[in-house]
């Protein structure tokens, strides 16, 4: 006990220690969430708490006081190694798993491992923080890192990361961003608290409060007005804002320096296929628009109404169909796909070749900017079908023909294209598809895919690419190919939209379109077939364009968009408890109301009944009515207290109560029944007591007494 007195002077106060321990432990918990199972998380939490208290309490007392920091750290390191060894021993040997179950031994192993890790790390951190000036900074950095790492996956608008939070929120219809914001607020507050503890500024809780208010006002703002729209670098100028203030971008699709792989995983839209369709060439193409008219320097959106009549330029509220439908219907399969746009688009897009769009009800306004059904006639022909086809549409005017064949005044395109088709076998020498294939093959074999290049500021970036280093991205490839097609007399244009690998569908019916899937490709018009995509695929690439297909998000968004009965059922099943809660609440309200009504009924009945009761019941009913009135002003008999004692106790409020009690008891316990037969006397006593009560109690108390429906429950 001698130690207790010294501890009071030297040891830190219990509350700051606990607060700090809780903050660091929660950051351990956060960090461990993605690394281990629940038992591991719990172990890391407990381990941290344990270490915090151990160090904070023990560091100022022997034996820990006499140890060097280095020694303590060494000991904690050996503890860590021991724990890891023990954990691996547990999971690698079959002893424990035979004794209980493999799962139990795994969980035990995780527990020991994470306990050892968090305890030893915390010991190191705490010892440094206690003994050095820089230690506290490391500790704060650690906590900050824990929060940042956990929430960093949430950047880029990935609303479902971390899964623990995302799944929890989404299945309950809560916006996960609010929860994540709350986490952020919590992190900031925790860090501020840590800093305050370290600096020992007792005045700072005031600032702390202001900080908390600011954080939560931000949260409130988000709840009220929503999150700011994520700013994506729209690779192709397609995924940008609907309001077209950025005409410069539209004029120049070649924006080399702005093309970075950053944000490439950002989800753009989700597609739910209503019909089964598997593309032959391994990619789903979604056509949004096309560059088809040469404006003197490069291809641009057409200004002619008789060109690109298969494209649908705008959203309309009703169903809108393309003016021209693709041909070769026997080689195409109708596909209906529901599309939910996560980012605003100027133009609707649909699976190649879209023929009609129809707006649908948006199942989730917070998540989808726009939802619509796209009806497409998706190609099922293979390239053999295209061999020997003629070019162009029969009803094209000469001007249209000319527009689709116009190209920069650069002879090199014609020369290169001519040289490429020179090697064709004689039987294919005049076949348009074979010529186009030769051009595509050339680009496939010689082109290098890269996002970093310097063609943008050339007069003709496509020429700079094709006759230069052949290094570029889809826009360069498609422009170069289109120019060469046109030089060969093949009507071609650059289709733009999205191209998603078929494997991303992963067997489901929903498909997530990410920013990285934005694409441009050359198209050729074959008579009786329609626009056919001939997309160069460079064999060499300098960029890794593979992304995480985010199957879970795809599934989730697809389910959300589908919004069909099964999804509703799923949500219902997840929300059963909430609905039941509502029901329970309503029942509860009804019950409370009924209870109130019946309580008032009983209350006023009991006050009223003595005036109507028979004489021989007066002693009982009158006395009860008076007990009710006294109970209403807070005076009631205690358990085991006799009636006389109670009457004496309330003498200050109602002196006549003693007399009433005597009369009541005489009637109840005595043999003579004479007193029971005089209602007038009882009435007189009642009035007197009521008068005394109203004189001796405060007005507010009497108002309360009158209102309280349950006062009579206390009188006994």
């Amino acid at each position, binding site marked *: 006990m001698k130690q207790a007195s010294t501890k009071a002077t030297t040891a830190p106060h219990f509350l700051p220690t606990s607060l700090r321990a809780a903050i660091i432990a929660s950051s351990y918990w956060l960090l461990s969430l993605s690394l281990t199972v629940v038992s591991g998380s719990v172990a890391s939490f407990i381990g941290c708490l344990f270490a915090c208290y151990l160090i904070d309490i023990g560091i100022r007392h022997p034996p820990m006081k006499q140890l060097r920091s280095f020694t303590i750290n060494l000991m904690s390191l050996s503890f860590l190694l021991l724990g890891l060894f023990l954990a691996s021993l547990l999971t690698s040997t079959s002893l424990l798993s035979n004794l209980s179950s493999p799962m139990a031994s795994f969980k035990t192993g995780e527990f020991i491992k994470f306990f050892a890790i968090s305890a030893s790390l915390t010991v190191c951190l705490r010892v440094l923080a206690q003994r050095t000036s820089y230690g506290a900074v490391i500790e704060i950095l650690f906590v900050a890192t824990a929060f940042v790492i956990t929430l960093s996956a949430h950047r880029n608008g990935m609303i479902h990361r971390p899964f623990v939070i995302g799944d929890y929120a989404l299945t309950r219809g809560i916006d996960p961003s609010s929860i994540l914001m709350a986490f952020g607020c919590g992190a900031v507050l925790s860090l501020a608290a840590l800093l305050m503890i370290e600096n020992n500024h007792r005045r700072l809780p005031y600032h702390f409060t202001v900080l908390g208010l600011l954080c939560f006002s931000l949260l409130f703002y988000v709840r009220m007005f929503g999150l700011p729209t994520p700013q994506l670098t729209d690779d192709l100028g397609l995924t940008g804002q609907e309001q077209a203030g950025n005409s410069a971008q539209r004029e120049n699709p070649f924006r080399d320096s702005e093309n970075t792989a950053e944000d490439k995983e950002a989800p753009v839209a989700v597609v739910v296929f209503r019909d089964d369709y598997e593309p032959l060439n391994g990619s789903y193409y979604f056509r949004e628009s096309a560059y088809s008219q040469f404006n003197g320097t490069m291809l641009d959106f057409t200004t002619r109404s008789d060109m690109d009549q298969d494209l649908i330029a705008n959203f309309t509220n009703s169903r809108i169909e393309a003016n021209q439908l693709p041909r070769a219907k026997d080689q195409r399969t109708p596909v209906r796909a529901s599309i939910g746009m996560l980012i605003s688009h100027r133009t609707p897009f649909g699976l190649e070749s879209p023929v009609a769009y129809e707006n649908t009800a948006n199942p989730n306004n917070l998540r989808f900017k726009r939802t619509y059904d796209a009806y497409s006639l998706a190609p099922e022909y293979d390239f053999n079908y295209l061999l020997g086809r003629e070019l162009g549409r029969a009803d094209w005017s000469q001007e249209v023909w000319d527009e689709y064949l116009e190209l920069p005044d650069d002879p090199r395109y014609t020369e290169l294209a001519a040289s490429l088709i020179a090697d064709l076998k004689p039987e294919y020498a005049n076949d348009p598809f074979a010529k186009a294939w030769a051009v595509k093959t050339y680009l496939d074999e010689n082109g290098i895919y890269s996002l970093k290049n310097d063609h943008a500021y050339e007069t003709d970036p496509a020429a700079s690419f094709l006759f230069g280093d052949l290094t570029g991205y889809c826009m360069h490839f498609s422009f170069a190919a289109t120019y060469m097609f046109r030089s060969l007399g093949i009507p071609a244009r650059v289709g733009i939209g999205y191209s998603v690998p078929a494997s991303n569908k992963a067997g489901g019916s929903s498909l997530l379109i990410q920013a990285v899937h934005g694409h441009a490709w050359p198209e050729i018009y074959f008579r009786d077939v329609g626009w056919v995509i001939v997309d160069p695929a460079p064999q060499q690439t300098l960029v890794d364009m593979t992304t995480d297909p985010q199957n879970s998000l795809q599934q989730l968004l697809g389910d959300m968009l589908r919004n069909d009965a099964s999804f509703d059922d799923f949500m219902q099943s997840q929300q059963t408890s909430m609905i039941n809660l509502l029901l329970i609440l309503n029942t509860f309200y009804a019950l409370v109301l009924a209870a109130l009504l019946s309580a008032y009924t009983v209350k006023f009945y009991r006050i009223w009944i003595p005036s109507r009761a028979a004489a021989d019941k007066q002693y009982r009913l009158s006395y009860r009515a008076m007990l009710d009135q006294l109970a209403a002003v807070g005076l009631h008999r205690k358990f085991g207290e006799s009636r006389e004692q109670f009457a004496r106790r309330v003498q200050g409020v109602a002196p006549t109560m003693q007399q009433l009690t005597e009369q009541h008891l005489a009637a109840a*316990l005595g043999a003579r029944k004479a007193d029971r037969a005089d209602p007038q006397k009882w009435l007189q006593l009642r009035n007197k007591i009521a008068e005394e009560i109203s004189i001796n109690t405060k007005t507010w108390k009497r108002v309360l007494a009158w209102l309280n429906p349950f006062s009579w429950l206390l009188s006994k």
Partner: protein
Amino acid sequence: MTPDSITEVTEPIPASDTEDANTPSPITAAIDVLNRLTTAVKQQVLGRDDVIELTLIALVADGHVLLEDFPGSGKTTLAKALGEAIIDDGKDSDRDEFILPFRRIQFTPDLLPSDVTGVPVFDSNSNAFHFRHGPLFAHVVLADEINRTSPKVQSAMLEAMGEKQVTVDNVTYPLDDLFFVIATQNPLDLVGTYPLPTPQLDRFLFKITMDHIDRQSELDVLDSYKKRRDLQQERITVTRDEVLFAREQIDAAVTISASVKSALVDVSRNLREDERVLQGNSTRSMVLMLPALQVAAALRGRNYVSAEDIELLLPRVLGHRIELAPGVADMNKVLLDAMRGPMEQLARGTLA
């Protein structure tokens, strides 16, 4: 009820007065006797109103009391005042001339039963044995330090208390109807005593533990000592027959309702079930208690027994009758715990 009584109820006066105002009943006379007795004793004994009340209750309820007190605290004064307040007016014909108002026996270890009961003495004139009455033949007997005498004397004493008779040489002599014993014992000086066992204590209706009187009362005692001594001649008195009459009247007039009886029984049962109690109270204690309750009610001007009477008497009646388990000291707490439930039932029952 007459209109008079309606006006009367507005002033807080005892209910019994209003009841009996227009129909004078024998109980008024009984209450008058009690009041006179109380006044008579209070003239002599100051600061002991509670003990006086209990003693009178025991007297009228045909019980005996055991006082536990220090020497010189007024036991003898109390007993003497009581004994002298009850006079024999000689109207009763079948009364025994040997009965005296008050006798005091100082118990010592060498006392013999015959010293208490009386002894047959050989009369040479009549050539026969003649019974000489002992000090038990009195209205009020003060048995001082009853635990100092041998069990033999104690048992003779207890026979007299229980049966109201003494037996000497196989001849039974009845004691007076108003035979009332005030026994005392010193709670501290226990060396050389024969403590009364629980069955013998059961004969006493009350065991009253007396505390020292308060300062003002003690001063009053010193101040009025002479006056009280001189007042001896002009005392208020009550006749023996009046006391016996009151006993009868109270028994007839004061109602004990069924709920009161069931409360008593429930308290006893609670006590017997209590783990802290080694041995509970007897059924006889309940039977003895009923008249006491009636007297207590009458003393308060009531013609029915109420919870108040039980609260007043139960600790005195049961205190010396129940044995607590080893380690349990607080008798009052045990009693209160056992009483709470039945008393609540009793209170609630009046509204049923």
